[in-house]
Every structure is written in C-alpha cells, then in structure tokens.
C-alpha cells in the first residue's frame, strides 16, 4: 500500500461514512469492523508474515482496552496519553509472550499463546477494580457522534495499515518472511530468527493494544470475555479467511467475521459454527484466502476488456506488408532488399516486428513472416513446431525461395531447426538467437496460469516481455510488440509453450551439415548456456555469448546483431 492507495481508501471510507451518516447503528458496525481489522492486521504480521500462529491475540486488545479505560476513568488523562500507555504495556506483553516463542514452534507456540490469552482474560476477571467478570461501564466515548468516532477509527486504520506496509516492505519485513519460509535459510543470511520473531510479536501486540484502546472508547463498556478465546479465534479466522500474509486480508476478514453476524442476528445459527466451518473450508480449499482470490480475479478479468479493446483496434490497423497463401491460409510477411534470401522467424508472443530494426541487410533479400497463429497471419488448429515449420516451407515454396539463410529467435529457433533438419536443402545457414534447445523446452506447470493471464492483462504481458529484453530501451517498439503479442491465437498463450516441450531433434540434428551460429544473451533467463551447448553438440556450429543482453538481442542491440549476422552470412 502506497500513499496514494492509502488516500483512496481514506476517501472511500469517508464517503461511506457520509452516505450512512444518519444510521448510527451501521456506523458503529463500521467502527468495529475497522477496529478488528487493525487487530487482525497485527495478528497477520506475526502469523501470516512471520509464520508464528498465535491464538491468544485477544489478550493484547484486552490490555489496550483496560489500560486506556482505567486511566481515563481513574485519572481523567486524555486519550493520546492513555493510548501511549496502552501501546507501551501491550508492547511489553508482546515482548513477554514473544520470549517463549523464541524457543517454541508450531503447536507448542499455539498452546503457549492460547494459555496466555485465557490467563490474561482470567486475570482481568479476577481484579475487583476492573469490575471483575462484569467489566467496566460508562467509559467516556471519543465523541458524542458515531460519525466522528467512525472517522477517527478510519484514520487510525488507514495510518496503521500504511505503517504496516512500510514495515513489511522494509528490511525488517523481508526478514519476517525469511524466518517464516525457513529459519535455517534465514540463519544462513546472518539473521537471528529469535530476534525477528520477538520483533514481530511486539509490533503485532502494539496493533492489538491500539485496537483495544479504540474499542474501549468506541463501545463505552468492556468485559473480559470481549477479549477472550472467542475473540482470539475470530481474529485468526479473519486472517485465514481474508488472506494470510496479505495486507488486505485483515480488513476483508474483519468485514466477514465482524459484519456477518449482523446479517444473521435474527437467525438462530451460532456464529462459532459458521466461522468454524469457514475456517476449515478455507484451509482445505482456499488456503491463500479471499485477498489472493480477489487479486487473481482482478489480474484475470479486470484487465480483460482493456486487452480486448487494444487487440481489436490494433488488429484493424493497416500494416505495411504483403500476404501469400499457403495451404489455404494467408501468411503476412515483409520483404526488403535484393539478393539471396534471408528468412527471419520470430519467437513465441512474437511477430515480424521483432526483426524490424534488422530487416535491411545489404546484398540480401530479407523475408520476415508472421507465423501462422501469430500477428496478422491466419489461424490453424494444430499447434506444433513441425506444423509451424511446414508452413515456413510452404511459404518459401510459394515465394520460390530455393535456399535461404534462416534466422530463428526463441520458439522461432525451434521452428527453424525443424525446417533445417528435415529439409536441409532449403537452409544454407542457420542462425539461432536464444533459441529453444534442440531437445525441447519444458515450461514449469505452475507458469501456465500466468501465461493464460497474459491474454487479459496488458501490463502483465508488457512486464513479462520487458523482462526478456532487459537491455531494450526503445519504449515505442516495446509497446508495439506487446500489442502484436495480443494478436496471437487465444489458445496459443499456453499451447505454444506446450508445443515447445513436445519435440526432440537431437538425432535429426546429425543430418544437418551446414554452418550454424548460436547467439546467446548472458542475461537470458529462459535459455541457459548448457542448453545452447547441448544444441550445438551434433551440429557444425559456433556459440556466441553476449554479455550485456538478455533473451532478445534483436531488439536489445540490433546493430550488434546485424553485424554478427552479416559476418556470418558473408563467411
């Protein structure tokens, strides 16, 4: 959450308050939702982000609530002093309960925190001065008006959430996550897990304390069970349902757990039953909670209309080039210059445009098609590297190109290998630019959902493409190739990647005797040095490694690529 987002939340919150300004019952619920969201956010810091499940967090609220209530009633001190005292006491208590946490993990920690929660509840119930089991009444409220109370809680919520996001993005926050993911690994980085856990407990306790203090002066009366086991379990439910390790999780959970009961207030179903069931359902089926689901949904669908719009208008744009029909399918291509032929084949998510800056090679004719299923060419059903290669062969036959230097980038590399190895007579020389390796390229299964999402999310697509051309500084061409990528056939977002895992030309490669040049960017995150060497194992080839570029030298340093290409073809 950045400053801008915080302000937006604040404004929306205020508008919501204004909308219901006369419904003090609703404003009261809103206030409670905010207060529990603060406490849940605190719990999320220690449980979600640092991995220390606590089921006694109600105790911190109790300390905050009782401290400020007692000070206000006994000494009449103002709230800002009381809340400071509440913070100090809560922090101290957080420190105390954090101490056993240094040695305890998992279930043992859960027992300790549960015992702690109940112990604090019982302690307050045993103290006469605090009203024992009955609790304290007539605590001065912040303001007469529920609206102002709501606004105050809103401000606290926004500021505390903002602070939480600052903490979580700071070095300390990073350490929280490292401790959660692996204490052993964290130690290897010189982090002391015990210190970090203690830190998280204290921060988390402070959030609980503040929430308790707000509760006192918002509701006006407190009693021990308000902060007992049930509250602790509810807080845990909030972050599990809302989303562990998500800043929004606390708020979403609080809306459901604090808000839901008012929907059911007339029914006879006890809330514990519903929350318990929700808790189990979420752990079993949606362990990442609602926040994650919402994020995924917005990634998938929110950008979709925009992506469609971009795609539609882009596909209508007239493009400078020609068409040729192969096997009944139209193939778009650009042709430039005079002389022997060079055919350039683009990669996955690509188009002819990727070669735009290297299309004029003196003394040669360059032919740069959009592969079928890409760009402005027609669609076919069978997605496989060999089929793509067959269309390139058809393309060359139609244009009467008997022999050509073939350049292939990435997936295009695989296509040109398929072409060269199966029809060696057509390919006089082969240039592989960060090509998929000779034995196929497997995309990890967990990446496919992301590939699918790119269809409907322009910025995701843009970031991904930018990631594979780290040295490219031309923003214009970047935004154009992003739009070109959107023109790809829908199914191909996943299917092309799958096609790349389904071939193995290791043995075929021995049939190709002509020279091969493999150009590899050192910063390439998809194609490794081993893959390149393995590809060249059975070929008459040479590997050229470029230090300063990533997966796409043709866009990242087109001049250098041109030079390498010209040297190679003129050899």
């Amino acid at each position, binding site marked *: 959450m950045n400053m801008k987002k915080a302000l937006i939340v604040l404004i929306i919150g205020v508008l919501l308050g204004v909308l219901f300004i006369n419904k003090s019952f609703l404003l009261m619920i809103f206030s409670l939702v905010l207060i529990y969201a603060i406490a849940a956010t605190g719990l999320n810091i220690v449980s979600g982000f640092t*991995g220390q*499940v606590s*089921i006694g967090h109600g105790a911190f609220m109790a300390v905050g609530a009782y401290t400020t209530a007692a000070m206000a009633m006994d000494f009449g001190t103002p709230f800002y002093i009381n809340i400071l005292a509440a913070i100090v006491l809560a922090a101290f208590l957080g420190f105390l*309960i954090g*101490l*056993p946490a240094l*040695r*305890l*993990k*998992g*279930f*043992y920690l*859960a*027992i*300790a925190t*549960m*015992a*702690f929660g*109940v*112990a604090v509840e*019982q*302690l307050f*119930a*045993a103290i006469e001065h605090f009203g024992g089991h009955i609790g304290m009444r007539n605590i001065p409220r912040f303001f007469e008006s529920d609206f102002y109370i709501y606004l105050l809680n809103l401000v606290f919520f926004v500021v505390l959430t903002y602070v939480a996001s600052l903490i979580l993005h700071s070095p300390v926050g990073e350490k929280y996550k490292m401790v959660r993911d692996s204490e052993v690994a964290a130690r290897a980085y010189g982090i002391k897990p015990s210190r970090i856990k203690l830190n998280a407990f204290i921060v988390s306790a402070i959030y609980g304390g503040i929430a308790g203090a707000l509760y006192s002066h918002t509701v006006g009366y407190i009693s021990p069970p308000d902060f007992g*086991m049930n509250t602790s*379990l509810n807080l*845990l*439910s909030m972050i*599990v349902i809302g989303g562990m390790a998500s800043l929004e999780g606390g708020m979403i959970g609080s809306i459901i757990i604090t808000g839901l009961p008012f929907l059911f207030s007339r029914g*006879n*179903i*006890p*809330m*514990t*039953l*519903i*929350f*318990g*069931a*929700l*808790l*189990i359902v979420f*752990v*079993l089926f949606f*362990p990442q909670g609602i926040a994650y689901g919402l994020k995924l949904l917005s990634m998938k669908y929110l950008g979709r209309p925009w992506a469609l719009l971009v795609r539609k208008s882009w596909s209508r744009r007239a493009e400078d080039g020609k068409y040729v029909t192969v096997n009944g399918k139209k193939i778009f291509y650009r042709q430039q210059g005079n002389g022997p032929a060079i055919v350039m084949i683009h990669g996955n998510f690509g188009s002819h445009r990727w070669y735009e800056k290297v299309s004029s090679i003196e003394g040669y004719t360059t032919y740069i098609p959009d592969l079928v299923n890409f760009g402005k060419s027609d669609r076919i059903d069978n997605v496989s590297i060999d089929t793509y290669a067959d269309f390139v062969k058809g393309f060359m036959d139609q244009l009467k190109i008997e022999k050509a230097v073939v350049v292939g980038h990435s997936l295009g590399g695989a296509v040109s290998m398929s072409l060269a190895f199966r029809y060696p007579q057509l390919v006089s020389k082969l240039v592989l630019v960060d090509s998929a390796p000779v034995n196929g390229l497997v995309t990890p299964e967990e990446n496919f959902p992301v590939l699918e999402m790119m269809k409907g999310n322009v910025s995701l697509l843009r970031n991904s493409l930018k990631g594979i051309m780290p040295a490219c500084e031309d923003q214009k061409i970047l935004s154009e190739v992003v739009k070109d990528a959107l023109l790809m056939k829908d199914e191909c977002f996943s299917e092309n990647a799958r096609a790349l895992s389904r071939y193995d030309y290791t043995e075929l490669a021995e049939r190709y005797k002509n020279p091969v040049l493999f150009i590899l960017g050192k910063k390439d995150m998809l194609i490794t040095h081993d893959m390149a060497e393995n590809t060249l194992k059975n070929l008459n080839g040479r590997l050229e490694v470029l230090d300063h570029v990533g997966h796409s030298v043709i866009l990242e340093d087109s001049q250098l690529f041109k030079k390498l290409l010209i040297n190679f073809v003129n050899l």
Partner: protein
Amino acid sequence: MLILQSIILGIPQGALYGLMAFGISLIFRTVGVMNFSHGNAGMFSAFIALTVFLLTQNLLLAILCAVIFGILLGFLIEKFLMRPVKHLSHGGMLIITLGILMILEGLAQIIWGVNPFSFNELVSGPPLMFTLGEDGLLILPLNDLLITVISLGITILLAVFLKVTKVGIAIRARSQDEVGSKVVGINTNMIDGLVWGIGISLSALVGVLIAPKTTVTPTMMMNMQLYGFTAGVLGGFTSLYGSILGGIILGILEKIVGIYISPDYQLTIILLIIILMLAFKPSGLFAKKFEGRV
C-alpha cells in the same frame, strides 16, 4: 492438614487432567497433530450421554454411548478433515482443529442450547472420612474415589494395550516412523483413525466424569482442555505416562492455589505455569531432552 486435604481432593481432579493429556499426547505422538478440539469433542460426547440418559435413565449406558460416540467422532475427524492435510502443513492442521472446536461448540448450542444441564454422579452417598491425629479430619467423596480408580484403571489398560498387543505396538511403531510402519504392512490410515478414536473417547470419558461438577454446557470443557494441555506440557507430550503424572501434579497444585491463594487466580496461575514451562523446559518435568514434534 489442609495440604493433605488438597492432595486428596486434587488427585481425582488431576487424574482427569491426566486422562485428558493422555488422549492429546496419544494423538500428538502418533499423528503429529496437537488437537485443539479435544475438549469440545468430549463436551459433545457428554451431551450425547446426557441425551441417552434422559431417554433411558441408564447412566452406564449413557456413558458407554458417549465413549463409543467419541471413538466414532475421532475416526470421522481423521478420515475427512485431517487426512487431506496430513502432509501439508502444521499450521493447516492446527487451524483445522480450531475450526472443529468452533463447529462443535456451535452445533451443541443449536441442538442443546446454552443453558446448563445437571448430570448425575456415578455414585452418591456420604463421603469417606478419616480422622487423623487429634483434630484432623480428611474428606474423600465417594465419586472422586471412583473417578480416580476409573482413570487409573483406563490408563493401565491402555498402557497394557500399547505394550503387548500387536495393534498397540503398531501404534507405537507408527508414531516413530511413518515410512517404516508403512513398509512393514501397517495400514497407517487405519491406525491414525484408531488413535483419533481412542484419544477422543478418552475426552468423552472425562466429559461424563466431570459433568456432575461442571454441569453439561457447550463450554464445559474449555478449561478442562487447557488443563489437559498444561498436564501434557508438565509431563512432556512425548511421554504418555508423564501426562498422567503431570495431570495429578497439576490437580494437587490447583487445589493448593485455590486454598492458599484464591480460587479466582487458580486458572491464571496454572496458565502461567504452562507458559513458563514451555519457555524454560518444553520437554516436560520428566524428560531428559526436548525431542517433541513441532
């Protein structure tokens, strides 16, 4: 004198805590889950006993039904809720048991409401009295005596079961090495279900035995579960017999605090013991080193 009386009153109470801890430890040792729904599973079983009793007026049948229900409930929890997450995450398992805790409480509220029901003692009658020295008089209620006998009897029975029967040894084998127990042909899912069943039936037994004192309500076992955990912590969860001993120590300690300090602070002080124990000697009073599962 007072101290002797606290011990006498503390032992029956402590025996129940021990039984509670025994069940929790058994599940924890074998399956690796700390069962936070243990108390409420017993509470729910006590309601079953209550219902059977109200229908038949037969106390023994009621208790039997509760225990059988406990076994069944344990099997069901293992099969449908714990098995899917068994190897996924400790956090997940923990949260599921908390979910069960809440569901059982809610269900009990729907079915039986929140008003307390009274429940009969096993035996009634004048307590046993012993005179000691000049003016010392020790009181031991008959029901308490019976509770102690039953608790210790069950413990010994289970100990023998675990020690000599084939299935008992298989349970211990499973608790030590899951892969090892699989490859010798032990049906680990069945063993896990059985362990859950035994564990929860113990809680059911505790539920019906304590019911005359607490009355039967949806929250009757909340404190009992905490005491069970405390006893387990004292005994060290990895030692089953430590649990019983831990329970009895706890029971006596509780009475002493109640008599010498104030009943109001009983629970708080006991809970502080848990936290201190966990902080400084998580292996329990009797174990040499901490080898607990997390």
